[in-house]
């Protein structure tokens, strides 16, 4: 198992909003009370103002990590800080917004009453509560359904409500568990826009998600966990960049181009009239010279980035071996 980026080792930047170091957690299960390890060694760091994604297959330890962050579960060893305070500190929760997986709300309350309860728990004044509730219900498109009890809400509506209540206290840090769960493509896009808007406002967002495309689109940093361990962690752009590989895009193609340039590339593909070549970086000039000789125009040369999906699959495969 390897870690692409290890910002925790010897580095403690002051702008870290969330820090977990070597967290371990096991539970006693069954009649024999045998210990089952849920988190073996998780370390991560979320910088102020970034969108951070926690990724991992089912049973990897994401939920336990999230619960440890929220002070719902206590680690066996390791340490952590949330908004500069020790984990579980009530004061740090004043500046924290949390979007749980849906259905974790009181179904007997209307959306308006539930926001009222949650807002008052944050100590918001009546005026603040009224204006913020109205604004947030507008933002998530639930203004006209705020009189309905939450048990009448559909899955998507509950998710939207969850986002509204998570932002009620104008938090510095928002922790979201599967923010797009249960939403249709339009809803997912709206949530992405909300997250990007929050980032623009200087908020820090920590999200746990299975949706790799969503994470790839909006996250600045990620941590991939598997079997209770952090297996990749760092800035997404750095993690996706394949060392020593370059992607060259040429205008035009055809059998002549494929025949001449194919042997020089790791992979050659034609898409919409363009030829895309993934080459070893040291072979870049040879390919460009050959393309010039063939009279094919250059469109772009850029570092080759793999997809998050391939990074994820590779990380899981390696750490499972």
């Amino acid at each position, binding site marked *: 198992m390897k870690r692409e980026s290890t910002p925790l080792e010897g580095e403690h930047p002051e702008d870290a909003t969330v820090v977990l170091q070597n967290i371990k957690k096991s539970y006693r299960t069954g009649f024999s009370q045998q210990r089952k390890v849920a988190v073996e060694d998780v370390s991560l760091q979320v910088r102020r103002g970034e969108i951070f994604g926690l990724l991992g297959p089912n049973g990897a330890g994401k939920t336990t990590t999230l619960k440890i962050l929220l002070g*719902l579960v*206590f680690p066996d060893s390791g340490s952590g800080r949330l908004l500069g305070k020790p984990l579980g500190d009530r*004061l740090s929760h004043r500046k924290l917004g*949390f979007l*749980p997986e849906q259905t*974790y*709300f009181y179904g007997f309350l209307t959306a308006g009453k539930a926001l009222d309860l949650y807002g008052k728990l*944050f100590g918001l004044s009546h005026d603040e509560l009224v204006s913020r509730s109205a604004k947030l219900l507008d933002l998530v498109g639930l203004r006209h359904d705020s009189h309905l009890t939450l048990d009448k809400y559909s899955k998507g509506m509950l998710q939207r409500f969850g986002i509204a209540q998570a932002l009620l206290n104008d938090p510095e840090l928002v*922790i979201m568990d599967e923010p797009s769960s249960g939403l249709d493509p339009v809803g997912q896009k709206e949530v992405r826009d909300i997250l990007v808007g929050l980032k623009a406002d200087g908020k820090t967002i920590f999200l746990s998600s299975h949706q790799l495309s969503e994470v790839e689109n909006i996250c600045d940093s990620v941590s991939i966990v598997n079997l209770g361990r952090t297996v990749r962690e760092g800035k997404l752009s750095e993690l996706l960049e394949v060392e020593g590989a370059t992607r060259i895009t040429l205008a035009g193609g055809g059998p002549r181009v494929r025949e001449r340039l194919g042997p020089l590339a790791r992979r050659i593909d034609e898409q919409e009239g363009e030829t895309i070549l993934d080459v070893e970086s040291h072979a870049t000039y040879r390919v460009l010279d050959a393309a010039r000789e063939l009279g094919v125009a250059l469109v772009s040369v850029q570092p080759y980035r793999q997809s998050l999906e391939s990074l994820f699959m590779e990380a899981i495969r390696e750490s499972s071996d």
Partner: protein
Amino acid sequence: MRNIGLLALNVIKDTARRKLFYVVFIFGLAVLALSPLLPSFELGAKAQFLRDISLSMTSLFGIALAVILSVNQLPGEVEKKTIYNILSKPVSRLQYLLGKYLGILATLAIILFIMGVEILVLIYVRLHVFSPLIFQGVFAVFLECAVIAAFCLFMSTFATVPVNVFATMMFYLVCHVKTGFLHDKLVGKSVGVVKVILWPLYYVIPNLEDFNISLQVGYGGGVSWAYLLRVSGYAILFASIFLILAYLLFRRKDL
């Protein structure tokens, strides 16, 4: 303090949703059903009998309600995971526990008060006897329910619902035979292994019979204010002990 109040209010709303307040109608009907069964005593004796039996029923309903309200407060929220969203707010586990407990007490107070009014009205309508003393008995029932609810809440921090119900029933029974059966067996003159092992139990469990004043209210002039004050302190003491134990277990509990 505000958070505790908000959480307590939420318990009352949840009780209303579960339609538990309807128990007062069932109670009213049950007391009403007793009326034709009254023995053919003279008027005063009838009123005494009705006061006594109604208070005993209030106690029965109250205890059952205290258990129903307390037994699933924590396990229910953990199972539905609604607790996650509350404790992720600036709410401490102590506030959460106290909010739940005070919500249970407030619900019990509302329901028991309505039951008291029902008894008062029924005795007045049926026998034209005004018996405000009934509220002394209802208050004593409330105190007993407060102890039972605290015990039940404490048990719910580690026991499953069926185990909790069984344990609370045992607790109720044992605490009611303290001055009788338990006194004879554990403090009396007989000596035995059981006595040696269990005698400390006699001194640490509350005597719930102290809260049973249905005879005094039914047939006498009630109890003194000093007595009510003493049993109030007694209830607060034991409820506090159970709540402290509950907090110690809940404080670091993984959810």
